[in-house]
Protein backbone atom coordinates (compact mmCIF):
# COMPACT_ATOMS: atom_id res chain seq x y z
CA UNK A 1 0.00 0.00 0.00
CA UNK A 2 1.31 3.44 -0.96
CA UNK A 3 1.05 5.72 2.07
CA UNK A 4 1.71 9.39 2.71
CA UNK A 5 5.07 8.32 4.15
CA UNK A 6 6.25 7.47 0.61
CA UNK A 7 5.43 10.99 -0.53
CA UNK A 8 7.28 12.41 2.50
CA UNK A 9 10.34 10.40 1.46
CA UNK A 10 10.04 11.76 -2.08
CA UNK A 11 9.76 15.32 -0.73
CA UNK A 12 12.72 14.67 1.59
CA UNK A 13 14.82 13.49 -1.37
CA UNK A 14 13.93 16.61 -3.37
CA UNK A 15 14.90 18.87 -0.44
CA UNK A 16 18.19 16.95 -0.05
CA UNK A 17 18.87 17.78 -3.71
CA UNK A 18 18.00 21.47 -3.20
CA UNK A 19 20.33 21.49 -0.19
CA UNK A 20 23.29 19.86 -1.97
CA UNK A 21 22.88 21.94 -5.14
CA UNK A 22 22.71 25.14 -3.04
CA UNK A 23 26.12 24.37 -1.57
CA UNK A 24 27.69 24.45 -5.03
CA UNK A 25 26.08 27.75 -6.07
CA UNK A 26 28.84 30.38 -5.85
CA UNK A 27 26.45 33.09 -7.09
CA UNK A 28 24.61 32.92 -3.74
CA UNK A 29 26.55 34.72 -0.97
CA UNK A 30 24.54 32.86 1.70
CA UNK A 31 24.71 29.48 -0.01
CA UNK A 32 25.58 27.51 3.13
CA UNK A 33 22.59 28.95 5.00
CA UNK A 34 20.37 27.77 2.15
CA UNK A 35 22.10 24.38 2.31
CA UNK A 36 21.43 24.12 6.05
CA UNK A 37 17.81 25.32 5.77
CA UNK A 38 16.71 23.00 2.96
CA UNK A 39 18.78 20.21 4.51
CA UNK A 40 17.02 20.58 7.87
CA UNK A 41 13.66 20.57 6.10
CA UNK A 42 14.74 17.37 4.32
CA UNK A 43 15.53 15.83 7.72
CA UNK A 44 12.04 16.79 8.90
CA UNK A 45 10.42 15.05 5.93
CA UNK A 46 12.64 11.95 6.06
CA UNK A 47 12.87 11.37 9.81
CA UNK A 48 10.29 13.65 11.50
CA UNK A 49 7.98 10.70 12.02
CA UNK A 50 10.62 8.87 14.07
CA UNK A 51 11.74 11.85 16.21
CA UNK A 52 10.42 12.72 19.66
CA UNK A 53 8.23 15.83 19.91
CA UNK A 54 11.09 17.68 21.58
CA UNK A 55 13.48 16.80 18.72
CA UNK A 56 10.92 18.06 16.19
CA UNK A 57 10.50 21.23 18.27
CA UNK A 58 14.25 21.84 18.31
CA UNK A 59 14.38 21.17 14.56
CA UNK A 60 11.78 23.90 13.99
CA UNK A 61 13.71 26.30 16.19
CA UNK A 62 16.77 25.55 14.05
CA UNK A 63 14.83 26.32 10.85
CA UNK A 64 13.48 29.56 12.33
CA UNK A 65 16.88 30.79 13.52
CA UNK A 66 18.53 29.96 10.18
CA UNK A 67 15.95 31.85 8.13
CA UNK A 68 14.88 34.44 10.69
CA UNK A 69 18.29 35.93 11.47
CA UNK A 70 19.84 37.47 8.37
CA UNK A 71 17.54 35.64 5.99
CA UNK A 72 18.33 33.16 3.24
CA UNK A 73 20.07 33.93 -0.04
CA UNK A 74 18.68 33.38 -3.50
CA UNK A 75 20.45 30.81 -5.65
CA UNK A 76 21.05 31.53 -9.34
CA UNK A 77 21.21 28.21 -11.16
CA UNK A 78 21.97 28.60 -14.86
CA UNK A 79 18.73 28.67 -16.79
CA UNK A 80 17.62 29.47 -20.32
CA UNK A 81 17.58 33.00 -21.76
CA UNK A 82 14.32 34.71 -22.79
CA UNK A 83 15.29 34.12 -26.45
CA UNK A 84 15.87 30.39 -25.89
CA UNK A 85 12.52 30.18 -24.14
CA UNK A 86 10.68 31.88 -26.99
CA UNK A 87 12.33 29.54 -29.51
CA UNK A 88 11.44 26.54 -27.39
CA UNK A 89 7.83 27.74 -27.06
CA UNK A 90 7.57 27.94 -30.85
CA UNK A 91 9.17 24.50 -31.22
CA UNK A 92 7.01 22.62 -28.72
CA UNK A 93 3.86 24.75 -28.87
CA UNK A 94 0.86 23.57 -26.88
CA UNK A 95 2.57 20.28 -26.07
CA UNK A 96 4.24 22.23 -23.24
CA UNK A 97 0.92 22.20 -21.39
CA UNK A 98 0.76 18.40 -21.28
CA UNK A 99 3.13 17.81 -18.32
CA UNK A 100 1.57 20.74 -16.46
CA UNK A 101 -1.88 19.21 -16.85
CA UNK A 102 -0.73 15.71 -15.85
CA UNK A 103 -0.51 16.83 -12.21
CA UNK A 104 -4.14 17.98 -11.69
CA UNK A 105 -5.50 15.20 -13.90
CA UNK A 106 -3.63 12.56 -11.88
CA UNK A 107 -4.82 14.15 -8.64
CA UNK A 108 -8.37 14.05 -9.97
CA UNK A 109 -8.18 10.44 -11.18
CA UNK A 110 -6.38 9.45 -8.00
CA UNK A 111 -9.16 10.79 -5.83
CA UNK A 112 -11.98 9.41 -7.94
CA UNK A 113 -10.61 6.10 -9.14
CA UNK A 114 -7.19 5.02 -7.81
CA UNK A 115 -8.52 5.39 -4.28
CA UNK A 116 -10.81 2.43 -5.02
CA UNK A 117 -8.18 0.13 -6.57
CA UNK A 118 -7.31 -2.91 -4.47
CA UNK A 119 -4.56 -5.45 -5.12
CA UNK A 120 -5.14 -8.78 -3.38
CA UNK A 121 -7.53 -7.15 -0.91
CA UNK A 122 -5.09 -4.37 0.06
CA UNK A 123 -5.91 -0.87 -1.22
CA UNK A 124 -3.25 0.51 -3.58
CA UNK A 125 -3.47 3.95 -1.95
CA UNK A 126 -3.83 4.68 1.75
CA UNK A 127 -7.55 5.58 1.80
CA UNK A 128 -6.91 8.44 4.24
CA UNK A 129 -4.86 10.57 1.82
CA UNK A 130 -5.60 9.55 -1.79
CA UNK A 131 -5.35 13.12 -3.15
CA UNK A 132 -1.93 13.91 -1.67
CA UNK A 133 -0.54 10.55 -2.77
CA UNK A 134 -1.95 11.08 -6.27
CA UNK A 135 -0.36 14.54 -6.33
CA UNK A 136 3.05 13.00 -5.63
CA UNK A 137 2.48 10.36 -8.28
CA UNK A 138 1.39 13.04 -10.76
CA UNK A 139 4.64 14.95 -10.18
CA UNK A 140 6.73 11.84 -10.91
CA UNK A 141 4.72 11.15 -14.08
CA UNK A 142 4.95 14.78 -15.23
CA UNK A 143 8.74 14.81 -14.75
CA UNK A 144 9.03 11.58 -16.75
CA UNK A 145 6.92 12.89 -19.64
CA UNK A 146 8.63 16.30 -19.54
CA UNK A 147 12.13 14.81 -19.62
CA UNK A 148 11.26 12.50 -22.53
CA UNK A 149 9.66 15.30 -24.52
CA UNK A 150 12.02 18.23 -23.83
CA UNK A 151 15.32 16.33 -23.38
CA UNK A 152 16.85 18.94 -21.02
CA UNK A 153 20.07 18.39 -19.02
CA UNK A 154 19.51 15.64 -16.44
CA UNK A 155 19.69 17.99 -13.45
CA UNK A 156 17.35 20.59 -15.01
CA UNK A 157 14.20 19.74 -12.97
CA UNK A 158 16.07 19.91 -9.66
CA UNK A 159 18.03 23.06 -10.57
CA UNK A 160 14.92 24.83 -11.90
CA UNK A 161 12.96 23.63 -8.89
CA UNK A 162 15.65 25.09 -6.63
CA UNK A 163 15.41 28.42 -8.49
CA UNK A 164 11.67 28.60 -7.76
CA UNK A 165 12.08 27.27 -4.20
CA UNK A 166 14.63 29.99 -3.41
CA UNK A 167 12.15 32.56 -4.81
CA UNK A 168 9.65 31.36 -2.21
CA UNK A 169 12.40 31.20 0.41
CA UNK A 170 11.60 30.94 4.12
CA UNK A 171 7.90 31.52 3.34
CA UNK A 172 7.89 27.86 2.27
CA UNK A 173 7.42 26.74 5.87
CA UNK A 174 5.20 29.66 6.95
CA UNK A 175 1.90 27.77 6.42
CA UNK A 176 3.19 24.83 8.47
CA UNK A 177 4.42 27.21 11.22
CA UNK A 178 1.02 28.92 11.41
CA UNK A 179 -0.75 25.56 11.70
CA UNK A 180 1.55 24.70 14.61
CA UNK A 181 0.88 28.08 16.24
CA UNK A 182 -2.84 27.35 15.95
CA UNK A 183 -2.30 24.07 17.81
CA UNK A 184 -0.51 25.88 20.67
CA UNK A 185 -3.27 28.54 20.79
CA UNK A 186 -5.85 25.75 21.08
CA UNK A 187 -3.89 23.99 23.86
CA UNK A 188 -3.56 27.19 25.84
CA UNK A 189 -7.26 28.04 25.47
CA UNK A 190 -6.84 31.35 23.61
CA UNK A 191 -10.13 30.90 21.76
CA UNK A 192 -12.30 30.52 24.84
CA UNK A 193 -10.89 33.73 26.33
CA UNK A 194 -11.49 35.75 23.14
CA UNK A 195 -14.99 34.34 22.66
CA UNK A 196 -15.89 35.05 26.28
CA UNK A 197 -14.68 38.65 25.95
CA UNK A 198 -16.86 39.32 22.89
CA UNK A 199 -19.95 37.80 24.53
CA UNK A 200 -19.34 39.87 27.70
CA UNK A 201 -18.75 43.21 26.01
CA UNK A 202 -21.54 43.32 23.39
CA UNK A 203 -25.19 43.62 24.53
CA UNK A 204 -27.06 40.96 22.54
CA UNK A 205 -30.52 42.54 22.50
CA UNK A 206 -31.40 42.27 18.78
CA UNK A 207 -30.87 39.48 16.29
CA UNK A 208 -28.96 41.79 13.93
CA UNK A 209 -26.47 42.68 16.68
CA UNK A 210 -25.85 38.99 17.36
CA UNK A 211 -25.45 38.26 13.61
CA UNK A 212 -23.02 41.17 13.13
CA UNK A 213 -21.05 40.19 16.26
CA UNK A 214 -20.80 36.58 15.04
CA UNK A 215 -19.84 37.37 11.43
CA UNK A 216 -17.42 40.21 12.22
CA UNK A 217 -16.01 38.15 15.09
CA UNK A 218 -15.41 35.23 12.71
CA UNK A 219 -13.65 37.53 10.22
CA UNK A 220 -11.52 39.32 12.85
CA UNK A 221 -10.50 36.16 14.70
CA UNK A 222 -9.63 34.59 11.33
CA UNK A 223 -7.44 37.61 10.53
CA UNK A 224 -5.54 36.93 13.77
CA UNK A 225 -5.35 33.16 13.40
CA UNK A 226 -5.00 33.06 9.61
CA UNK A 227 -7.49 30.22 9.44
CA UNK A 228 -11.28 30.20 9.62
CA UNK A 229 -11.17 26.61 10.88
CA UNK A 230 -9.48 27.81 14.07
CA UNK A 231 -11.94 30.66 14.53
CA UNK A 232 -15.09 28.64 13.84
CA UNK A 233 -15.41 26.45 16.96
CA UNK A 234 -14.46 29.37 19.21
CA UNK A 235 -16.78 32.02 17.79
CA UNK A 236 -19.67 29.61 17.22
CA UNK A 237 -19.50 28.31 20.79
CA UNK A 238 -19.20 31.85 22.20
CA UNK A 239 -21.65 33.80 20.00
CA UNK A 240 -23.17 31.77 17.15
CA UNK A 241 -24.92 29.03 19.11
CA UNK A 242 -25.88 30.78 22.38
CA UNK A 243 -27.13 34.00 20.81
CA UNK A 244 -27.92 33.69 17.08
CA UNK A 245 -29.29 30.14 17.30
CA UNK A 246 -30.67 29.61 20.83
CA UNK A 247 -31.67 33.14 21.89
CA UNK A 248 -33.02 34.40 18.55
CA UNK A 249 -33.99 31.08 16.96
CA UNK A 250 -31.71 31.03 13.91
CA UNK A 251 -31.46 27.85 11.80
CA UNK A 252 -28.16 26.26 12.95
CA UNK A 253 -27.26 24.90 9.49
CA UNK A 254 -27.66 28.32 7.86
CA UNK A 255 -25.95 30.19 10.70
CA UNK A 256 -22.90 27.89 10.66
CA UNK A 257 -22.60 27.62 6.87
CA UNK A 258 -22.66 31.39 6.39
CA UNK A 259 -20.62 32.00 9.55
CA UNK A 260 -17.79 29.93 8.10
CA UNK A 261 -17.95 31.95 4.88
CA UNK A 262 -17.77 35.18 6.92
CA UNK A 263 -14.55 33.75 8.35
CA UNK A 264 -13.21 33.22 4.81
CA UNK A 265 -13.58 37.02 4.29
CA UNK A 266 -11.01 37.37 7.08
CA UNK A 267 -8.71 34.84 5.40
CA UNK A 268 -8.58 37.08 2.31
CA UNK A 269 -7.31 40.05 4.37
CA UNK A 270 -4.49 38.62 6.48
CA UNK A 271 -0.79 37.81 5.99
CA UNK A 272 -1.35 35.06 8.58
CA UNK A 273 -3.07 33.02 5.84
CA UNK A 274 0.36 32.47 4.36
CA UNK A 275 -0.32 29.82 1.75
CA UNK A 276 -3.08 31.89 0.15
CA UNK A 277 -1.69 35.41 0.51
CA UNK A 278 2.08 35.34 1.13
CA UNK A 279 3.21 32.34 -0.92
CA UNK A 280 1.70 33.65 -4.20
CA UNK A 281 3.25 37.09 -3.63
CA UNK A 282 6.63 35.33 -3.43
CA UNK A 283 5.92 33.02 -6.36
CA UNK A 284 4.85 35.97 -8.54
CA UNK A 285 7.86 37.98 -7.32
CA UNK A 286 5.80 41.01 -6.29
CA UNK A 287 8.05 43.86 -5.07
CA UNK A 288 5.96 44.35 -1.90
CA UNK A 289 5.89 40.64 -1.00
CA UNK A 290 7.32 41.23 2.49
CA UNK A 291 4.83 43.99 3.41
CA UNK A 292 2.08 43.06 5.89
CA UNK A 293 -0.53 44.08 3.30
CA UNK A 294 1.10 42.90 0.07
CA UNK A 295 -0.39 43.37 -3.40
CA UNK A 296 -2.40 40.14 -3.27
CA UNK A 297 -4.08 41.11 0.02
CA UNK A 298 -4.75 44.66 -1.23
CA UNK A 299 -6.38 43.25 -4.36
CA UNK A 300 -8.63 41.09 -2.16
CA UNK A 301 -9.68 43.55 0.57
CA UNK A 302 -12.49 45.33 -1.37
CA UNK A 303 -14.12 42.01 -2.31
CA UNK A 304 -13.60 40.65 1.21
CA UNK A 305 -15.31 43.63 2.88
CA UNK A 306 -18.25 43.57 0.45
CA UNK A 307 -18.59 39.81 0.97
CA UNK A 308 -18.59 40.27 4.75
CA UNK A 309 -21.51 42.69 4.48
CA UNK A 310 -23.24 40.31 2.05
CA UNK A 311 -22.81 37.38 4.47
CA UNK A 312 -24.24 39.41 7.36
CA UNK A 313 -27.29 40.36 5.27
CA UNK A 314 -27.76 36.81 3.96
CA UNK A 315 -27.60 35.35 7.47
CA UNK A 316 -30.03 37.96 8.80
CA UNK A 317 -32.54 37.35 5.99
CA UNK A 318 -32.22 33.56 5.68
CA UNK A 319 -31.46 32.15 9.15
CA UNK A 320 -34.67 33.30 10.84
CA UNK A 321 -36.92 32.45 7.86
CA UNK A 322 -36.06 28.84 6.98
Amino acid sequence: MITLQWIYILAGAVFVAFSVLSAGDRENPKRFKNTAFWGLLAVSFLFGGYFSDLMNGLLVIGLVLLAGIGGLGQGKPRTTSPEERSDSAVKFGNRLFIPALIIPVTALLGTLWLAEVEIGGTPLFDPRDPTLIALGLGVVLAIGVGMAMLKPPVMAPLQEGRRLMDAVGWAAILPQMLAALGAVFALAGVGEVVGGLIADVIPMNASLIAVVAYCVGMALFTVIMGNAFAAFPVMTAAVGLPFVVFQFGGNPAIVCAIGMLAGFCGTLMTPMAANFNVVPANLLELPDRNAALNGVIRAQIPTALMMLVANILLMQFLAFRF
Partner: protein
Amino acid sequence: MWVLLGIAVVVAGFVLRLNPLLVILAAALTTGVAGGLGLVETVEAFGSAFNDNRYISIVWLVLPVIGLLERSGLQEQARILIGKVRGATTGRLLLGYFVARQVTAALGQTKLGGHPQMVRPLIAPMAEAASETRHGPLPDAVRFRIRAHSAAADNIALFFGEDIFIAIASILLIKGFLEQNGIIVQPLELSVWAIPTAIVALLIHGTRLVLLDRRIAAEVANARPDEDAAGEVRS
Protein backbone atom coordinates in the same frame (compact mmCIF):
# COMPACT_ATOMS: atom_id res chain seq x y z
CA MET B 1 -6.19 36.72 30.07
CA TRP B 2 -2.42 36.32 29.91
CA VAL B 3 -2.73 33.78 27.10
CA LEU B 4 -3.74 36.68 24.84
CA LEU B 5 -0.15 37.96 25.06
CA GLY B 6 0.69 35.67 22.13
CA ILE B 7 -1.77 37.56 19.92
CA ALA B 8 -0.13 40.83 20.98
CA VAL B 9 3.25 39.36 19.96
CA VAL B 10 1.87 38.49 16.52
CA VAL B 11 0.43 41.97 15.99
CA ALA B 12 3.56 43.73 17.28
CA GLY B 13 5.77 41.51 15.14
CA PHE B 14 3.89 42.36 11.96
CA VAL B 15 3.79 46.09 12.82
CA LEU B 16 7.56 46.10 13.46
CA ARG B 17 8.04 44.04 10.26
CA LEU B 18 10.15 41.41 11.98
CA ASN B 19 10.67 38.09 10.20
CA PRO B 20 7.31 36.24 10.49
CA LEU B 21 8.99 32.93 11.37
CA LEU B 22 10.63 34.53 14.43
CA VAL B 23 7.35 36.26 15.34
CA ILE B 24 5.36 33.03 15.16
CA LEU B 25 7.87 31.09 17.25
CA ALA B 26 7.94 33.88 19.85
CA ALA B 27 4.13 34.02 19.90
CA ALA B 28 3.88 30.25 20.37
CA LEU B 29 6.38 30.23 23.25
CA THR B 30 4.69 33.24 24.89
CA THR B 31 1.24 31.69 24.60
CA GLY B 32 2.32 28.29 25.87
CA VAL B 33 4.18 29.65 28.88
CA ALA B 34 1.42 32.18 29.69
CA GLY B 35 -1.13 29.37 29.39
CA GLY B 36 0.78 27.31 31.96
CA LEU B 37 2.21 24.69 29.60
CA GLY B 38 5.86 25.22 30.53
CA LEU B 39 8.66 25.98 28.07
CA VAL B 40 9.66 22.40 27.20
CA GLU B 41 6.05 21.25 26.81
CA THR B 42 5.37 24.22 24.52
CA VAL B 43 8.36 23.37 22.32
CA GLU B 44 7.13 19.76 22.23
CA ALA B 45 3.57 20.78 21.32
CA PHE B 46 4.87 23.09 18.60
CA GLY B 47 7.25 20.47 17.19
CA SER B 48 4.58 17.79 17.21
CA ALA B 49 2.07 20.01 15.40
CA PHE B 50 4.72 21.11 12.87
CA ASN B 51 5.48 17.48 12.13
CA ASP B 52 1.80 16.52 11.84
CA ASN B 53 1.27 19.31 9.31
CA ARG B 54 4.08 18.34 6.93
CA TYR B 55 1.45 17.45 4.33
CA ILE B 56 0.84 21.19 3.79
CA SER B 57 4.35 21.54 2.31
CA ILE B 58 3.93 18.59 -0.10
CA VAL B 59 2.79 21.15 -2.68
CA TRP B 60 6.43 22.25 -3.25
CA LEU B 61 6.97 18.95 -5.06
CA VAL B 62 5.40 20.56 -8.14
CA LEU B 63 8.18 23.17 -8.42
CA PRO B 64 10.64 20.93 -10.35
CA VAL B 65 7.90 20.27 -12.94
CA ILE B 66 6.93 23.93 -13.23
CA GLY B 67 10.60 25.00 -13.39
CA LEU B 68 11.39 22.42 -16.06
CA LEU B 69 8.49 23.65 -18.20
CA GLU B 70 9.35 27.33 -17.59
CA ARG B 71 12.89 26.84 -18.88
CA SER B 72 11.36 25.35 -22.02
CA GLY B 73 9.05 28.31 -22.61
CA LEU B 74 5.78 27.46 -20.81
CA GLN B 75 5.04 31.07 -19.84
CA GLU B 76 5.92 32.27 -23.37
CA GLN B 77 3.56 29.68 -24.88
CA ALA B 78 0.79 30.77 -22.48
CA ARG B 79 1.33 34.34 -23.72
CA ILE B 80 1.32 33.30 -27.38
CA LEU B 81 -1.88 31.34 -26.87
CA ILE B 82 -3.78 34.20 -25.24
CA GLY B 83 -2.43 36.69 -27.82
CA LYS B 84 -4.26 34.71 -30.52
CA VAL B 85 -7.63 34.93 -28.78
CA ARG B 86 -9.38 37.96 -30.20
CA GLY B 87 -11.30 39.96 -27.61
CA ALA B 88 -9.24 38.54 -24.75
CA THR B 89 -8.68 41.05 -21.96
CA THR B 90 -7.13 40.63 -18.52
CA GLY B 91 -10.49 41.08 -16.81
CA ARG B 92 -12.35 38.64 -19.06
CA LEU B 93 -9.59 36.05 -18.81
CA LEU B 94 -9.54 36.24 -14.99
CA LEU B 95 -13.34 36.15 -14.93
CA GLY B 96 -13.25 32.97 -17.03
CA TYR B 97 -10.71 31.43 -14.68
CA PHE B 98 -12.75 32.58 -11.68
CA VAL B 99 -15.88 30.81 -12.95
CA ALA B 100 -13.98 27.63 -13.84
CA ARG B 101 -12.23 27.60 -10.45
CA GLN B 102 -15.47 28.22 -8.55
CA VAL B 103 -17.39 25.51 -10.42
CA THR B 104 -14.65 22.87 -10.09
CA ALA B 105 -14.23 23.71 -6.39
CA ALA B 106 -17.98 23.35 -5.93
CA LEU B 107 -17.62 19.86 -7.41
CA GLY B 108 -14.90 19.07 -4.87
CA GLN B 109 -11.93 19.44 -7.23
CA THR B 110 -10.00 22.01 -5.20
CA LYS B 111 -6.62 20.71 -6.42
CA LEU B 112 -7.29 21.72 -10.04
CA GLY B 113 -6.11 25.28 -9.38
CA GLY B 114 -3.63 26.77 -6.98
CA HIS B 115 -0.73 29.21 -7.02
CA PRO B 116 2.28 27.00 -7.81
CA GLN B 117 0.38 24.77 -10.27
CA MET B 118 -1.82 27.22 -12.21
CA VAL B 119 -1.36 30.89 -11.29
CA ARG B 120 2.41 31.30 -11.64
CA PRO B 121 2.97 29.20 -14.78
CA LEU B 122 -0.25 29.89 -16.70
CA ILE B 123 -2.84 32.35 -15.39
CA ALA B 124 -0.59 35.29 -14.45
CA PRO B 125 1.43 35.21 -17.73
CA MET B 126 -1.81 34.96 -19.74
CA ALA B 127 -3.39 37.82 -17.80
CA GLU B 128 -0.30 39.99 -18.44
CA ALA B 129 -0.17 39.03 -22.11
CA ALA B 130 -3.83 39.92 -22.65
CA SER B 131 -3.11 43.50 -21.57
CA GLU B 132 0.18 43.63 -23.48
CA THR B 133 -1.59 42.64 -26.69
CA ARG B 134 -4.01 45.55 -26.23
CA HIS B 135 -1.81 48.23 -24.74
CA GLY B 136 1.79 47.36 -25.61
CA PRO B 137 4.48 47.24 -22.93
CA LEU B 138 3.05 47.60 -19.42
CA PRO B 139 4.34 49.86 -16.62
CA ASP B 140 5.64 47.82 -13.67
CA ALA B 141 2.85 48.96 -11.35
CA VAL B 142 0.24 47.64 -13.79
CA ARG B 143 2.14 44.39 -14.34
CA PHE B 144 2.30 43.70 -10.60
CA ARG B 145 -1.35 44.66 -10.12
CA ILE B 146 -2.32 42.11 -12.78
CA ARG B 147 -0.25 39.42 -11.08
CA ALA B 148 -1.81 40.20 -7.68
CA HIS B 149 -5.29 40.01 -9.22
CA SER B 150 -4.44 36.65 -10.77
CA ALA B 151 -3.67 35.24 -7.30
CA ALA B 152 -6.73 36.97 -5.81
CA ALA B 153 -9.08 35.45 -8.41
CA ASP B 154 -7.81 31.97 -7.51
CA ASN B 155 -8.30 32.50 -3.76
CA ILE B 156 -11.72 34.16 -3.90
CA ALA B 157 -13.16 31.63 -6.36
CA LEU B 158 -11.86 28.75 -4.22
CA PHE B 159 -13.15 30.12 -0.90
CA PHE B 160 -16.65 30.89 -2.15
CA GLY B 161 -16.95 27.73 -4.24
CA GLU B 162 -15.59 24.86 -2.17
CA ASP B 163 -18.23 24.91 0.57
CA ILE B 164 -20.90 23.91 -1.96
CA PHE B 165 -19.22 20.49 -2.06
CA ILE B 166 -20.52 18.22 0.68
CA ALA B 167 -17.26 16.47 1.57
CA ILE B 168 -14.99 19.49 1.97
CA ALA B 169 -13.09 19.92 5.25
CA SER B 170 -14.97 23.01 6.42
CA ILE B 171 -18.40 21.40 5.94
CA LEU B 172 -17.27 18.29 7.84
CA LEU B 173 -15.88 20.52 10.60
CA ILE B 174 -19.23 22.29 10.95
CA LYS B 175 -21.12 18.98 11.01
CA GLY B 176 -18.78 17.57 13.68
CA PHE B 177 -19.02 20.72 15.78
CA LEU B 178 -22.81 20.79 15.71
CA GLU B 179 -22.95 17.09 16.58
CA GLN B 180 -20.86 17.73 19.68
CA ASN B 181 -23.49 20.29 20.65
CA GLY B 182 -26.36 17.89 20.12
CA ILE B 183 -27.52 19.24 16.74
CA ILE B 184 -27.57 16.74 13.86
CA VAL B 185 -27.35 18.21 10.34
CA GLN B 186 -26.56 16.51 7.05
CA PRO B 187 -23.68 17.88 4.94
CA LEU B 188 -26.13 18.68 2.13
CA GLU B 189 -28.20 20.92 4.46
CA LEU B 190 -25.03 22.92 5.11
CA SER B 191 -23.66 23.04 1.59
CA VAL B 192 -26.85 24.37 -0.05
CA TRP B 193 -26.58 27.45 2.17
CA ALA B 194 -23.16 28.18 0.70
CA ILE B 195 -24.81 28.76 -2.70
CA PRO B 196 -26.26 32.26 -2.08
CA THR B 197 -22.84 33.54 -0.94
CA ALA B 198 -21.18 31.89 -3.95
CA ILE B 199 -23.52 33.72 -6.33
CA VAL B 200 -22.94 37.06 -4.59
CA ALA B 201 -19.17 36.46 -4.75
CA LEU B 202 -19.37 35.87 -8.50
CA LEU B 203 -21.39 39.07 -8.98
CA ILE B 204 -19.15 41.24 -6.79
CA HIS B 205 -15.76 39.96 -7.90
CA GLY B 206 -16.91 39.56 -11.51
CA THR B 207 -17.86 43.24 -11.56
CA ARG B 208 -14.48 44.19 -10.12
CA LEU B 209 -12.69 42.12 -12.78
CA VAL B 210 -14.64 43.82 -15.57
CA LEU B 211 -13.75 47.20 -14.06
CA LEU B 212 -10.10 46.08 -13.81
CA ASP B 213 -9.79 46.36 -17.60
CA ARG B 214 -10.76 50.03 -17.50
CA ARG B 215 -8.38 50.71 -14.67
CA ILE B 216 -5.52 49.06 -16.56
CA ALA B 217 -6.31 51.10 -19.69
CA ALA B 218 -6.35 54.33 -17.66
CA GLU B 219 -3.10 53.54 -15.83
CA VAL B 220 -1.29 52.57 -19.04
CA ALA B 221 -2.46 55.81 -20.67
CA ASN B 222 -1.23 57.85 -17.70
CA ALA B 223 2.14 56.15 -17.57
CA ARG B 224 2.78 56.10 -21.32
CA PRO B 225 4.82 59.35 -21.76
CA ASP B 226 7.73 58.44 -19.47
CA GLU B 227 7.61 54.66 -19.13
CA ASP B 228 8.35 53.40 -22.62
CA ALA B 229 10.96 50.90 -21.49
CA ALA B 230 8.89 49.29 -18.76
CA GLY B 231 7.95 46.38 -20.98
CA GLU B 232 11.54 45.14 -20.89
CA VAL B 233 11.30 44.29 -17.21
CA ARG B 234 10.69 40.58 -16.93
CA SER B 235 11.43 38.19 -14.17
